[in-house]
Every structure is written in C-alpha cells, then in structure tokens.
C-alpha cells in the first residue's frame, strides 16, 4: 500500500508541473493587456513600456515562466498587479472562504444526493423513484446562477429573510459559524449544492439499482441476512464509484464557482478569479488557477488512495 501511495505521488509530480505550464501559457495566451488594470487608459507608450519592464512582461515567455516557477517552488506566488498585495495572501483568504462554502454545499449536496439516490435505487420505477429522479434531474440541469438569482429574489428581495451578498456583516474577516454569519451562507450554499446533489443522486441510484440485481444480493437474502445487513453490503459495493464521483464534485466545489460566488459576491476563489480575469491580473490569475489545480491533483490522489483502501483489487490492477 505504501509503495502504491509513493508511486501515485510520483505520478502526481509531473502532472503538477504540466498543470503549472498549462495554466501559465493559457493565461498569457488570453487577449488583453495585464497592465490595463493599473494604467489609466490614456497612458503613454513610454509609461506602458516602463511598467511592462517593471513587472517583467518585456522578457520572453520561457524566461517569465522560469522566474515564476522558481518563485512558486519557494512559496512565492508573486504580487497582484491590480492590488499590489501578495497573491498567496489573496488566494489563501479566498480559499478559506471557498472552503466554508464548499463544506456547506458538500454537506447539503452529498447528504441529499445520497439519500435521494438510495431512495430511488431501492424503490426503482415507483413514484418515489420518479420524485427523487426528478429532483436529481432538476439539480443537474438547472443553471445554478439562475437558481441563485431566483433564491435571491424570493428570500432576499421579496421576503427580506436572508442577505443576498457577502460573507458576513463585517465581510469575511473573523468568520465564525454563528447565526449571523450562517445567514449569509444559506443561499450560496444551497445554490452550490444542487449540481453535486443531482450528480450524486443519479450515480447512487444507478449503482444501487445495479447492485440490488446482482447475484450476491440474492444470495445474501437467501441466507437470511436482514435487510439492514444487505443494505450495508450494497453501501460497501457502491462506495468506491460513489466516492470517486464525490471526490470530483468536491474538487469542483472547492474550486469555487465563478458564477455563484459572483452572484452572491462571496469572496472566494471564484469571485477572485472573476476579478482577476476582468482585470487581466496575470499573477493573481496564475496563482489562483495553480492553487485550484493542485487541489484537484491532491484530491485525485486522495481518492485513489481511499478507493484502493476500500477495494484492494484496484491496487492489484
């Protein structure tokens, strides 16, 4: 098992390097001038050239990449062009806020997704299955930014129950899960949770339906195992695939959602990315994308390890 983990870490290293190269190149290939965020529109060519040199944008791309990678390896993601603040501090704060949102959405999405999936899987082709599947299809297909706007209209604009934007009455500083801050969390978390809920619900439904028709389940029942005992076996057999899907969904959630975080002005990574894209803030954009990509790489690694622990056949394969 340890060898397997070491091998997987070994595979992750070149992936991480590739990710850093891709995110650097993609950001630099995008149109627009990174200095537009800080230069007045009518800045002279001389001033543009001075600023370009000051930020190192006059160097060839491979040199820029080398300098950036070297700094990244030393834990320095550079400074935001637009704000001058260290990218690491900006991304750390945003990641913290996205984690809060992702954890809440995960709790809601995974719980309800799993519940609806099992209900639909066990009661296949019944009205319960249809209702649970309808909820799942709604979750998968409804654009979540649209749902966010609708929730804001109902619960913020019309009823005035919940605040529509921000992370707390004083911003995200000193965030604490008290009632005051939770009020700000409800709408974005519910909005974020619908897609994972739908995806997980449909996956679990298919898995459960499939497992229940397998021979070993009939054998277990024939041997007189209680329905709860059978259920435990179904869970264990459905878990590896479900966890793989959940890992991906968790990755998406941790990466924040540009749309949801923008609709709710939630100061997470999605909100930060949106600002960085519109301001052509290359260091911030590169740093944020890199951190999020590393999340995916790490999560995939963790999922592989957990899957192997649950099903040793994967390691052998």
């Amino acid at each position, binding site marked *: 098992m340890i060898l397997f983990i070491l091998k997987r870490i070994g595979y992750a290293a070149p992936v991480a390097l590739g990710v850093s190269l891709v995110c650097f190149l993609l950001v630099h290939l995008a*149109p*627009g*001038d990174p200095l*537009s*965020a*800080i*230069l*007045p*529109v*009518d*800045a*002279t*060519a001389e*001033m*543009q050239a001075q*600023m370009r040199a*000051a930020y190192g944008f006059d160097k060839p791309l491979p040199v820029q990449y080398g300098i950036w990678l070297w700094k990244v390896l030393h834990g320095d993601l550079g400074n935001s062009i*637009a*704000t*001058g*603040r260290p990218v690491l501090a*900006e991304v750390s*704060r945003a990641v913290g806020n996205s984690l809060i949102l992702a954890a809440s959405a995960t709790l809601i999405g995974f719980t309800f997704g799993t519940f609806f999936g099992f209900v639909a899987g066990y009661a296949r082709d019944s009205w319960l299955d249809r209702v649970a599947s309808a909820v799942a299809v709604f979750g998968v297909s409804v654009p979540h930014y649209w749902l966010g*706007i609708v929730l*804001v*209209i109902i619960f*913020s*604009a019309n009823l*005035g*129950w*919940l*605040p*529509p*934007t*921000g*992370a707390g*009455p*004083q*911003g*995200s*500083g000193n965030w604490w899960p008290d*009632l*005051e801050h*939770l*009020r700000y969390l*409800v709408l974005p978390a519910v909005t974020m949770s619908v897609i994972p809920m739908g995806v997980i619900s449909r996956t679990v439904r298919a898995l459960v339906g499939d497992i229940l028709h397998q021979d070993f389940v009939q054998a277990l029942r024939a041997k007189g195992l209680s329905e709860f005992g059978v259920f435990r076996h179904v869970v264990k057999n459905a878990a590896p695939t479900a966890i793989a899907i959940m890992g991906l969904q968790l990755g998406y959630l941790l990466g924040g959602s540009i749309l949801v975080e*923008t*609709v*709710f*002005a939630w*100061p997470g990574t999605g*909100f*930060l990315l*949106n*600002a960085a894209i*519109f*301001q*052509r803030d290359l260091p911030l954009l590169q740093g944020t994308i890199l951190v999020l990509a590393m999340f995916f790489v790490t999560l995939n690694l963790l999922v592989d390890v957990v899957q192997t622990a649950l099903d040793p056949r994967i390691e052998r394969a």
Partner: protein
Amino acid sequence: MRKVHRGPLLGLALALVLSAPAVAQGVLRIGMTASDIPLTTGQPDNGGEGMRFMGFTAYDALINWDLSSADKASELIPGLAASWKTDDADKTKWIFTLRPDVKFHDGSAFNADAVVWNLDKLLKTDSPQYDPRQSAQGRIRIPGVTGYKALDPMTVEITTKTPDATFPYQIAWIMMSSPANWEKLGKNWDAVAKAPSGTGPWKLTGFVPRERAELVPNKEYWDKNRVPKLDRLVLVPLPEANARVAALRSGQVDWIEAPAPDAVPSLKAAGLVIVTNLYPHNWTWHLSRAEGSPWNDIRVRKAANLAVDREGLKEFLGGLATPAQGFMTPGHPWFGKPTFKLGYDPAAAKKLLKEAGYGPDKPIKTKVLISASGSGQMQPLPMNEFLQQNLAEVGINVEFEVTEWNTLINIWRAGAKADSARGGTAMNYSYLIQDPFTAFIRHAQCNLAPPNGTNWGYYCDPEMDKLFDAVRTTFDPKEQLTVLQKVHEKFVDDALFLMVTHDVNPRAMSPKVKGFVQAQSWYQDLTPITMAK
C-alpha cells in the same frame, strides 16, 4: 404517515429573521461597481469611481471640484491651495498659496514640504516615497511638470515645460497623502493602505480587501461646511449588476451605482429612488481619418450624424440617456453655438451622401470596432445595433468587429492605422470629457497621434491646433472659455465624431437617503447626506 415536525424549522426561520442586523442610523452603505476597494494610499485606481469614493472622500487636491450643484457643470474651486496664479514674468511657473491650518488625519500639518513630497511620490523614481502604483495613476495627469519647490512653508512653485493654462485641471487629479503617516508606518505603502491619512472629509477606519471599507467623518475637516453629517460610510464592491440590485432591494446597502436599465422599473416599483444627471461623459463613434476612410468626407460624417434617431435610442434605454446635441453635454459652458444641429433627418442624410457620390446603388461599406461591454460603454451591443440599423436606412452599411473591452483599449492606444485596428474605420468609445485635455486636445491635436498620444483617428487640422495653443496660453478664464467654445463649435460643425448620446450616471438609492445633490461630475460630494429614520 410520518408527522412532519415543523417546530424546529419555524424556530430556525424565526431566529434567522430576528437576527437581521439593525441598521444603524446615520450609516450609508454604498454598493460600488468596482471589484475591489480602490487604492487607499492617496492616488486611487478604478478610474472615476475610485476618485469618487476613495479620492475626494479621504483626500484633497490643491484644487478641488465644486460638487455642490446639480444644475451646472462642476467647476474648479480652491482645495488645499487657497489661491494660485502664474508668475507674471514666466508663465511656466505656477505659484500655489496653501490653505493655512490644515491637518492630515494623523494630526500632522499640511504644508509646502508635503506638496513637494507628494509630487516626488509620483514623479521622482529615486525618492524613498516613490510609489509605482500611485505613480501609474497620477503621473499621466501632470505630464508637463518639470520642477517644483517650496518657496516658503505655505507657498509652492510648480514649473511646466511650456505655458499651460489647463494646468489647474491637471493638478486637480493629484491627491495629497500624509508624509508623517508614511514615516510612522515604516515607510511602507502596503501598511499605509490599511491606515491611510489624507486631509479629506472622511477618514478610513476599516478595510477588508475586495469586501468593504468603512469611513467616518473627519470632524476637524478644514471646510466646516463639508464636515460629513453621517456617522459612517461603508463602501462595498459589488461588480455584478444583479447582485447590486439584490443588495439594494433587500436593504443590505442603501445606494447602488449604475443599476442596469432593465432593473430600473422594478426598483422604482419597490419604492427606491433613481437619481440621474448629466455629467461629462459621451458615447461616440471615434472616426478614423486615415487614408481610405469614408469619414474623411465631411458630408459623410454629417450624414451619419443626421441618420441617428437619438430620441429613439433614449427610449430604447429606458430614458437613461441624454441625446447628444454636440460633443459636450447640452448646456455645458464650453458648448458655444455650433451651426450644425444634430437632428434626426434621414432625408438630409441621404442628400448629403448623394452629393458625396454614394446612393442606393453604391452604399458605403465599412467596419466599426465595438466592445461587448466596458467601463462607461453603457449597453454597447444593442446600442450599436440600433445605430447600425439607422445608418443602413440611409445607405451606410456597417459591419462590426466585436472585441473584448481591454483589447479595444489597446486598439485605441495603437491608433486606426495599426494592424490591430483590423481595417476598422471607426471605434465605439466612451469618453470622460472633464477638462480641455480629456475633452478635446487628446483626440484632435496633430502631434498626439499614436504612439505619442491617443488621437486614435489621426485627425490633424492646423486650425484646430492653433485653437489648442490658444487654450493653453490664454490664462484669463473668461477668454479661455471663449476659445473652448470655438473648439467645441469646430468639433460639432466639422462633425469630427459620430456624436450619439451621454450617459446620465444613474444610481439607485433608498428613500431614506436625504440631502444628496448629484453634481454634473464623475465625482460626488457625500458630506451633506443624512439617513432618515
């Protein structure tokens, strides 16, 4: 059937409702369009909005803008300088007599040394306080400054390359931050950003990057008539238009900048107030005068200007626009008496095109560069399509090259002759037209064609250059006004631009906001505002 226990749910809902924060009296919360708090150290970024909320709130310039009237265009007034004049013997030297007894928020005194220190901050790259970020914002505004010195503790002399009567407009961009505060905070601008110190009517007391800034009144402000009446001012960046509307509708903020036109009816229906006014902004097509451009023919330029149904466009925008009557806003002191009237007259447009050799058999075909969105661009796609239809009706067939806003800015900087213009003969661009340079000179002076400046269309007319020279060398304000009127008359009579409309700077606010006077300016005075109970 299982009984549903609704008690805990209702309890939670009730608790959520009851825990809604009480709105403190005298606190104004503003939802800005910016995605971050503008730079707080003195010279703000984020353009006009930055100057509005983090410039003239926490800071002053030597010369300020009069923002007290909604009925006339804002004018320059004494700020930290009580008076200014040019040296009688040498018109390149400006003498500023500073206002006595002005203190920065940290208690240190404002004096001539502080002015020199602030100019070094922007212009002298080897000075300890030189700040590239502030310099990027401020240096471009005072391009002609060649020297400056303190003549005595309350008098400063600033020298320009050539005599320049527009210099007061330029120096009105430059905000004064506290040298003592910078020293106290370890000569570190990042530290200053969290605890800045200016001389303005508001003091920054709280700052969460990208989320909020809090300001309280500076009770010691030198202009006692402008000591803020509110207890507190909170600035919240809300770049997404729907999020701003939702925040206002739910009572999370009391005021939002730039509500989307289609949200205005619902905001009005909800009892919220929409405030608009003219301000120095125009939405135009900047015409190329490069070789081969159809716009080199004045008849074609005039025809296009007569083909646009500006009133129809205003209606299309829900009334949130003022149809252009010229390049400057209607009623502006520089407007003058142009003879060419920007009416909607397709028949006259067709006649002019016929005289120019065009007609139904030989329509003009040309390409125009536009953006899908952008600062000050209003609703560029539907508005340009509206114009496209108008122009097609008289025989000008326009094809659009749609680019992203920052790309369009770069094309604008590069000029109409550059490859990046992709053969476009006009560009839809919105302009700040606040002072003689931003309104006229930068667009039309011969030697400001790219790469020396932003005369995008390469327009060059010696007669116009003479007028610009006169603007710069006429130091008597009344005489200068006459020259500026002549410049504007030439802009309109020669139909240098396709002059379409002016934005009206809409903002929506709670009816509790009292005392706000929307000045005809990019900046606004927040000091007279109170919040009704």
